[in-house]
């Protein structure tokens, strides 16, 4: 079983601040982390390896600093890590990103065929959930998104049975390998890094691929050139022009305040009185 896990390094969005005057993102000091959703897919891949044997290769496209994210994955137990990095990839949207990652996976396959590719449900920065489906289509793999459970993997016959989150229920799907799986959050809990793996991660000779080693054939399909979507502006949400009408009475007693509030509410929204009457037990 050879599993490739795609991971992305992202800024810890909980700590992002917007400059109040210039509306630009203040990135100084914002720590970079492994996209939290990718940890669920990495753990799922490691569990399959524990059970069926084989190897787990982690793959990331990003700036040289993304090395940290890959070493982290090695410390959890991944066997190999490949960083695809080249100025030519800068500005890639999801269509270009999936092209680059799919090319890299084809290169990986030249050594050992790939049975499964894992991706996160989505990232916390771009947040599109589009790269997984994109890679699957480009590699002509079956696509299994929002997977909450792998019920069965039949390595001998090359089939997989999974539970997929649908809007109103759970679909149980069976398909053939190779396929691309995106894993739902909460499916598992990431293991702790062992001492051994932490040492290994520190010394691990990371594979770093540029556009040539990643097998990029068509340079017009990567970076800005290969990206149909263009961000025309980034801005902070504008404060609403109208602020709340603060209810104010002479006494400012709770009872007076709420009675005044209801009078205003039902004058402005007469229908609401009707809706409340209808809803109330």
């Amino acid at each position, binding site marked *: 079983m050879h599993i490739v896990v795609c991971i992305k390094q992202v800024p810890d*969005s909980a700590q*992002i601040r*917007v400059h109040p005057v210039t509306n630009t*993102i203040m990135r100084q000091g914002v720590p970079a982390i492994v996209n939290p959703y990718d940890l669920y897919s990495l753990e799922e891949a490691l569990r399959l390896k524990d059970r069926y044997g084989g190897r787990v290769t982690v793959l990331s496209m*990003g*700036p040289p600093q993304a090395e940290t994210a890959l070493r982290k994955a090695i410390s959890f137990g991944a066997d190999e890590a490949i960083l695809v990095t080249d100025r030519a990839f*800068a500005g*890639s*949207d999801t*269509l270009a990103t*999936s092209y680059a990652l799919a090319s890299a996976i084809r290169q990986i396959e030249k050594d050992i065929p790939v049975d499964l590719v894992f991706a996160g449900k989505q990232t916390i*920065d*771009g947040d*599109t959930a*589009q790269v997984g*489906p*994109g890679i699957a*289509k*480009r590699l002509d793999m*079956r696509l299994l998104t*929002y997977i909450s459970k792998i019920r069965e993997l039949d390595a001998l016959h090359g089939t997989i049975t999974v539970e997929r989150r*649908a*809007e*109103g*229920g*759970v*679909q*149980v*799907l069976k*398909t*053939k390998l190779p396929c691309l799986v995106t894993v739902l959050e909460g499916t598992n809990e990431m293991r702790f890094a062992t001492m051994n793996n932490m040492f290994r991660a520190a010394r691990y000779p990371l594979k770093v691929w540029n556009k040539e080693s990643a097998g990029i054939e068509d340079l017009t399909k990567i970076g800005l050139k290969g990206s*149909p*979507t*263009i*961000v*025309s*502006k*980034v*801005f902070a*949400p504008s*404060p*609403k022009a109208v*602020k*709340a009408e*603060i*209810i104010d009475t002479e006494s400012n007693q*709770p*009872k007076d305040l*709420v009675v005044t*509030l*209801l009078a205003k*509410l*039902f004058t402005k*929204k007469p229908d609401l009185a009707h*809706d*409340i*009457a209808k*809803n*109330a*037990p």
Partner: protein
Amino acid sequence: MSETTEPRKPARKKVELDPKLARYKGVWVFVEHERGQVHPVSWELMGEGRKLADKLGVELAGVVMGAPGEDTRTFCHQAMHHGADLCYLIADEVLRDYRNEPFTKGMTDLVNTWQPEILLIGATTLGRDLAGSVATTLKTGLTADCTELAIDMENRSLAATRPTFGGSLLCTIVTLNYRPQMATVRPRVMAMPKRDESRTGRIVEHPLGMIETAIITKVLEYIPDNLQGKPQLAFADIIVSGGRGMKKQENFQRIWDLAKVLGAEVGATRPIVQAGWVEADRQVGQSGKTVRPKLYIAAGISGAIQHRVGMEDSDVIIAINSDPNAPIFDFATYGIVGNAMVIVPALTDAFRQHLSTSRMAG
């Protein structure tokens, strides 16, 4: 990549569209359904699609794919009732359940045949699975989770605005030299249009051209969610939410009391869910539910952006907060500055009073 936090390229103002692409005309909305029911997000998108089509002076079409029979035809008529001028229909047994392979083929074939300029899809688990696959197959741009759609008349392009970085920023994205321009929108973000049963339109049928044996993925089973007793915030008319200002779990009972009198659902901010005072299904906001009730009452909630994006489109927002400078007052409709521990029970009494008087009156 490293630059993803910067605008990736300034949008050029005037772009001559490739004549091959200029042939792409019309706005399409994918009509998503599961177990005999259309997902409301499809009608919300139909309302939005109507505005875009009118601005462009083109037709609005629904796209229905499913098993042959009454249901799929009914969905086509419903699409017209919600604003479509026509509906494309692929009815095939193979499409009974959603599966990526046949749905991607159906949609890409339709697009290649009829060439729409804009294609809108709900950002549900089904919609995102389909949209990402269709966009990659067609090699076109796809903007995710939009909160606002507009037409830039200068080059007739779709300007799609979406939150990013967990909702703390917005960005506007355009797809200039590719067609169709694709976008997904989350449920409850756009308003539900009024339905008009007198509206009619034509149905254009199209074959799928795929047989069951050619599809590798099989659906073994479908286990419907047990919704009994589960909170249904997304469709509630009235929501009463509490935040950290309620201070203690036992105080949160005051939120439940008010909700009970109003027949409302109870919502909460993330810290309340993390503290385990209410179940995760009640979290409103960026990483919780997007809601659009007629009335949203927020007690002891500061109005952080991640909460705001999930509820700001409510018709009326009443905020109760002891801090007159709390951000929630920047976008609420009415505010009471005061102690929620006292104001919420007073509000409960006032609503109860109001209900009993109005019942006596009529």
